[in-house]
């Protein structure tokens, strides 16, 4: 009896999709486990406060400079007009 190729193809589809989903399901499960473990035992070190306060300071300075520039421009404009 000649084998029906289409039936063979359907069998391939069953095995193939089954393997892909099985693999991804196991992967999803372990991704969850791994994320929890990592967050529990090795929490990511927060960026240290020293550098962040520095950046805030520099931000403030920038802002001040901008304000000064704006005021100077306004005064100049006022005098000229």
């Amino acid at each position, binding site marked *: 009896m000649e084998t029906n*190729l289409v039936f063979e193809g359907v069998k391939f589809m069953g095995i193939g999709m089954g393997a892909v989903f099985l693999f*991804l*399901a196991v992967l999803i499960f372990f991704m969850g486990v791994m994320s929890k473990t990592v967050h529990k035992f090795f929490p990511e070190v927060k960026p240290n406060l020293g550098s962040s306060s520095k950046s805030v300071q520099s931000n403030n300075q920038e802002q001040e400079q901008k304000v000064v520039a704006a005021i100077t421009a306004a005064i100049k404009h006022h005098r000229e007009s």
Partner: protein
Amino acid sequence: MRFMIIKLLTFLMLLSATVYADDAAPVEAPQKASTHKEETYKTQPFSDMIGGFLTSTGINALVNPNPNEMNAHGEAMSDFHKGWGRVIMILITFLLFYLAIVKGFEPLLLLPIGFGGLLANIPVANMAGPDGFLGIIYHMGLANQLFPILIFMGVGAMTDFGPLLSNPKTAFLGGAAQFGIFGTLVGAVALAEYTPFFDFTLQQASAISIIGGADGPTSIFIATQLAPELLGAIAVASYSYMAMVPIIQPPIMKALTTDAERRIRMSTMRHVSRLEKLVFPIMVLVLAILVLPDSTPLIGAFMFGNFLKESGVVDRLSDTMQNALINIVTIFLGLAVGSKLASDQFLVADTLAILALGIVAFSAGTAAGVIMAKIMNLFPGSKVNPLIGSAGVSAVPMAARVSNKVGMEYDRTNMLLMHAMGPNVAGVIGSAVAAGVLISIFK
């Protein structure tokens, strides 16, 4: 004392004499050779020389095919494939140049493939044969599947698994899209079974169906292993359809979703720590080792590249993989695939079936991804926008961009790009697994 000097002189003379004798010997040999040459070279009349030159031209080779000419595998070719077939193939390569340069279809691959095809169809020179340079490149890295693996390494070094890690369940979308592969496999064997024109074996059908994975290197990897005779058509179909993702996918995505579904907003992504990203490639590889070792050549190379990138301590190596290495391999891969565009292998009815099945495979994969997203929305939990389902076909990052673009058509502030990258990279893993399954079946 004088006696000593005479002795020394005679010794020197003897020495020089022997040296001269040694010198003289090889001088004679070329003289002999040249006289020999003169014997074989016969003077011919000028008219004969012109005639001889004319018979060696390409025009003559195309118009009057040489009956003794063999194809790259040393098999006989039909006169059509030696003559007009080559002209047609050269015109097809011009079409590939047009698509690559003017339309911007995957120029990085279609240009080397097209030019390789142009060179492979030159009569007389036989560049695709085992001694031609295209043939040498083919045997160097494509016949043994080296090039696709190296490309995978580079792709791994360019991939960021962050979006997948922050929303792991979207990996199922990448799995569902692999239906494109297996659905097309059934379609191809059905064609072979119920139509008289095509006669695909299961190996050939599997090689064709992997186009549905929308992953060029995987397609080439499988095709060289299962059906090397179809490699040219499969690679061209795979890369051209990948380039056409923005045209093929949106109508399918719109047809399968409602307006409300397309406007679904997905929750913002959580931050993924560096350690998670570093552990992930090793974890996937360990799973592949345990579940499906046949997929480890592809997954192993992919994860190697990714691991180097995420380790953060070997930027030089990861940079080489992402740029220099992948560029060099792309040139060789393109030329080697192009060498399979010889007229006797490409101008066959099977090519048309491959092109048709390829687009079916892409569409089926897209549809399956979208439908899977809708199924996932039936379950409780955070909702998934079905538009990112289509990104489950690999085609990184084109498919994810298409999801984002279609989503923005309906809600300008709904950014789906990063959400779509999750299924997108899961699709790469999924198609590597599917490839491993096919390889394990035919072992």
